[in-house]
């Protein structure tokens, strides 16, 4: 049984068809890529899987439980977490709070604990804080723990978002252009981080990438989409040589 299975997913924005008949199967621990030109519908697919949009048609099964119609926080609590293409950090909060807070669904001390500070709350929070700190340590940003995120350099902010996404111990991690806006050096570092997360924490990863190099190097298999439709699926080598992918990226040669 695959971890995540998406069947015939279609989504319309009004009259615009953003995603059409999309199929996906991911097994535990896989590292998959999703590529396509601008506006192809890659981020929309992420938004559909994480419940931010509801698909017009189709089903999304996480370990054979249907995710369609659930709230984003329910889906996240079931183990699907993501990062965003344009950073979506909480601008008034510290790095540590970001990571700690992503463990929201793991805390069960309830309202009495929140109002009065019970022993149970302190125990659960201490545990959560320990895990958050370890995670920051792993990504090498623990010395920024008490900084407000908006004061940090871009590369670090990216890592914070990554740390926040894995803090809730997801089974499936969706990364939306993790290297967007980075220089080559930062890009290599981020690729290392992604590999590290996969090896040490073991979630399956689905990755949107704009840069072919990153996708080709990281991913085991890649899907290419264009105008919301799946045009190719295969190993990086196959995708690189697939004529439809080349057409989509470079434009079709006019035959005169």
């Amino acid at each position: 049984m695959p971890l995540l299975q998406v069947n015939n997913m279609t989504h319309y924005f009004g009259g615009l068809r953003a995603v059409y008949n999309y199929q996906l199967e991911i097994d535990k621990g896989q590292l998959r890529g999703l590529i396509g030109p601008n506006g192809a519908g890659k981020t929309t697919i992420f938004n559909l899987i994480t419940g931010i949009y509801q698909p017009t048609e189709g089903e999304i099964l996480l370990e054979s439980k249907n995710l369609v119609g659930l709230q984003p926080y329910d889906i996240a609590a079931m183990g699907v977490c993501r990062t965003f293409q344009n950073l979506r950090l909480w601008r008034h909060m510290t790095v540590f709070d970001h990571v700690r807070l992503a463990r929201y669904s793991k805390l069960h001390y309830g309202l009495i604990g929140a109002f009065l500070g019970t022993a149970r709350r302190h125990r659960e929070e201490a545990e959560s804080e320990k895990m958050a700190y370890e995670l920051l340590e792993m990504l090498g940003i623990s010395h920024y723990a008490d900084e407000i995120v908006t004061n940090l350099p871009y590369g670090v902010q990216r890592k914070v978002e990554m740390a926040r996404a894995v803090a809730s111990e997801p089974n499936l991690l969706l990364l939306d252009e993790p290297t967007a806006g980075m220089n080559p050096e930062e890009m290599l570092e981020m690729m290392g981080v992604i590999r590290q997360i996969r090896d040490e924490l073991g979630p399956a990863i689905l990755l949107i990438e704009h840069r072919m190099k990153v996708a080709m190097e990281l991913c085991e298999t890649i899907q290419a989409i264009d105008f919301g439709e799946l045009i190719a699926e295969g190993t990086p080598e196959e995708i690189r040589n697939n004529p439809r992918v080349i057409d989509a990226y470079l434009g079709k040669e006019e035959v005169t």
Partner: protein
Amino acid sequence: MEVRGSTVQPAEAIARNTLLVKVRSQLAQIPLLGWLFGTLTAMAIEQVAGRLLARALGLSGVPGLFGLRIMLTKPALIPSAVAYVLLVYALPTLIVARLSAPLANRLAKLLLDRFPLWVSLVVHLGLLYATLHLWGGTSAYRMLFLSFIFISIILTLSLNLVNGYMGEFSCSHPGFMAMGAYVASILTVLFFVQDDVFGAPLLPPALGPFLFPLALIGGGLVAAVGALLVAIPSFRTRGDYLAIISLAFLFIVKSVIENLEIIGGPRGLMNQPKWANLPTVFAWTAICVWTIYNFTRSTIGKAACAVRDDETAAGTMTINTRRTKMVTFLFAAFWAGVAGGLFAHVMGYINPGTFDVKKLSEVLAMVYLGGLNSVVGSIAGAFGIQLLMEVLRPLELFKWIVIPVLLIVLMILRPTGLIAFTEVNVEDLLKPRQKLEKGR
């Protein structure tokens, strides 16, 4: 009560042997406990010698509010008023605080090390209360002033939860306050007072003061139910909906009360027993500040901040956004209701005119003056505005020009308020200072 951050290093003090540095390093050794000893002594001095000293300085009596009003109305007496404040409040506080610092430091350390946090907290609160009791005990005017400050603190803090921590804009706080005030009043009048409308008391009035907290909680809970009615339609989407719906709710509550003859309509409701004396109001304020402080540091309180900063991101990070918003809003409304109940039993009379847009602007001013997202900020804001309104009372109509102008100036100088986005850790506040740490 001040919050002191990192203190001046001894080496630096020797290098720059200026008066200011000396004074600062002296003051930095004083823990909160020492300051409380100081203020307590000052109040005791006022109790014993205040009247005598005031006469000797040519003042007609003990100045009500630190001589501030005397300074405004009779400028010729400014030197006397300043001298009084210095001699009675400032100097004794400073001297006693500094002299008792070694002892206070040891005591503060002992309290924190040997006992759980709450013991230390209770000791500090007890001393604070003793100070206020001595100060307020000298006149009914001061007593009322203190009670209003505490009620304002509850209101401001709870509104800050919604407008600051959660980042929505709620206008219905006076409405929740009115609901709390009326429900608590009806409960106490119905059960414990011989009244023309509600008839003979249902329970022996002697029980009243003991069951009074239940009436307040009842008022708070009804206010929370009111908040639920506002929350259900307005939390479906973000944006200005809450502001509009909550403003409408405020008007609805007011006109419903005005048209209910049984609770007095526009004439108001009276006969409430004045059970909300200073210790009661102080205790409720302490509980309110403590629970809200806890809440803002809890995961669900932080989640409210996350919802404010980016709701989509919060949702995809497992935060139950709807529950977070509901809990925060209802919790805030509960405290507004309790504040209303206290207000009714301080005054012994309420009418719907009190809970109008003017009240709203007052509370909003307190929140935004003090600073969003800060428990200390809200306390400072409530105290600041309340003090301003009292001090500027001799200006009569001009008060309503001076206060808004001051607010505008403040908004230009400090757009986020005096103390915004600042968290103070209670343990840091109570802990012993420098001297002892050096010896360790």
